[in-house]
């Protein structure tokens, strides 16, 4: 298990390779479709600091509010593929070091990871309770009114958030690897059926 503290320097990210298990601590930000469109089409000045050497998380949380502020009730990852048209630009422009989500991403994002020194991390799908518990504090939220709760940009402080590196900064993707191996295996099994 590798511990990552945010913000994280490029050389630490370059050392990661696909298959590595990590736990992440520090401040990160949630971003879904509306946030990605916004970050690419405009200068998202309010999130520049968190994103520089930071990480963003594809998550539409369930939140609740009380006297002490906002809390994450459920915080599992959402499918990352939808952000493929934007992610490479976001990585390049804001100096993001890690993108967390589920299901993996495409060639453009993989190329951006290689060029700019970033990784894609896969959170475990369905891990609603554990991941919400790893969110220690909601620091602030951007675009809540405009985007709504699931799409808003939540700035959260996490502690020991578990994930697996599935796309690294050297052009490797665990998703492609598993897909290729399993396809080959399926071909062989199919003949014996």
């Amino acid at each position, binding site marked *: 298990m590798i511990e990552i503290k945010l913000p994280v320097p490029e050389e630490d990210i370059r050392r990661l390779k696909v298959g590595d298990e990590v736990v992440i601590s520090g401040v990160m930000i949630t971003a879904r479709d509306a946030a990605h469109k916004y970050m690419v089409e405009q200068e998202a000045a309010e999130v520049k600091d968190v994103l520089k050497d930071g990480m963003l998380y594809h998550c539409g949380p369930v939140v609740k509010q009380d006297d002490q502020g906002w809390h994450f009730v459920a915080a599992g990852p959402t499918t990352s593929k939808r952000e493929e048209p934007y992610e490479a630009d976001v990585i390049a422009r804001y100096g993001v070091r890690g993108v967390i989500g589920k299901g993996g991403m495409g060639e453009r994002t993989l190329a951006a990871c290689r060029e700019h020194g970033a990784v894609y991390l896969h959170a475990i*799908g*369905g*891990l609603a309770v554990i991941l919400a518990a790893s969110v220690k504090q909601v620091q602030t939220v951007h675009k809540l009114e405009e985007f709504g709760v699931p799409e808003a940009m939540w700035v959260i402080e996490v502690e020991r958030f578990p994930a*697996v590196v599935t796309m690294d900064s050297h052009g490797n993707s*665990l998703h492609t690897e*598993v897909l290729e191996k399993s396809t080959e295996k399926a071909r062989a099994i199919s003949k014996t059926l």
Partner: protein
Amino acid sequence: MDPQTLRKHLLELVRMTACDLAPDVEQALARARDREEGRARSTLEWMIKNSAEARESSRPVCQDTGSLIFYVDHGREIRPGLVAQAAREAAAEATERSYLRPNAVDPITGKNSKNNVGRGSPYFHFNEVEDDNALRVRLMLKGGGSENCGAQYTLPDNTIEASRDLTGVKRCILDAALRAQGFGCAPGVLGVGIGGDRMTSFMESKEQFFRKLDDQNLDPLLAELEDEMHKKVCELGIGPMGFGGRTTVLGVKVGIRHRLPACYFVSVSYTCWAYRRRSLEIVNGEARYA
């Protein structure tokens, strides 16, 4: 049973289904963990931990609490309409209490009903049984990500060299598992429906999910098919969440229906590791949950 009491029991059924994985599922996850190593093992370990914490705090195991599918066996003295009404009210209250996420969206307007009640939601299937006062309600919460992994094959299917025979059926199952990769939050369970028409074939595949993971198919031929395909699908090496590993699925369950001479459907449904189904039985006025 008066509607109030029934509603209360159904609410508890919904809570249990959403927040407390059935013992056979947790045991299967634990057995899988013991067989694995590295990230496959720790991924399963996280899933097990998550389930334990969900149970303790009455919070949903996964935030996608899925669609509500009720199967109701009832005696002649019990009116299905009343059970359905009580279940709809229970679903709405469960949403208010955050056991369920509001999951019913109008496909045209995009509007969320906010309480899980809408057209065709919850879904009900009624079956009349002999005993006049009998009532058994089974509930499945079927998550959306895993639902996207299902597939229906029309045999013969030349793209996977599946002809209208047992070998063809096996190729369909293998192909569906390959396409699903880890996307439906593996390790899940494959429910397979062979025969029927388009609708009943898919129904048969879904109904498999009400079976216990460690049961044995009463039809020896199907029992053999299930074991063989469980093993072979695991050999694909897709593993928990598609990170690679031995545990690609926790089980394969197969049901058949007579088909039309002209049709040969094989339907494969996928349910994720957050495999949520529970039952409620009313015996002499007393509620028994399982």
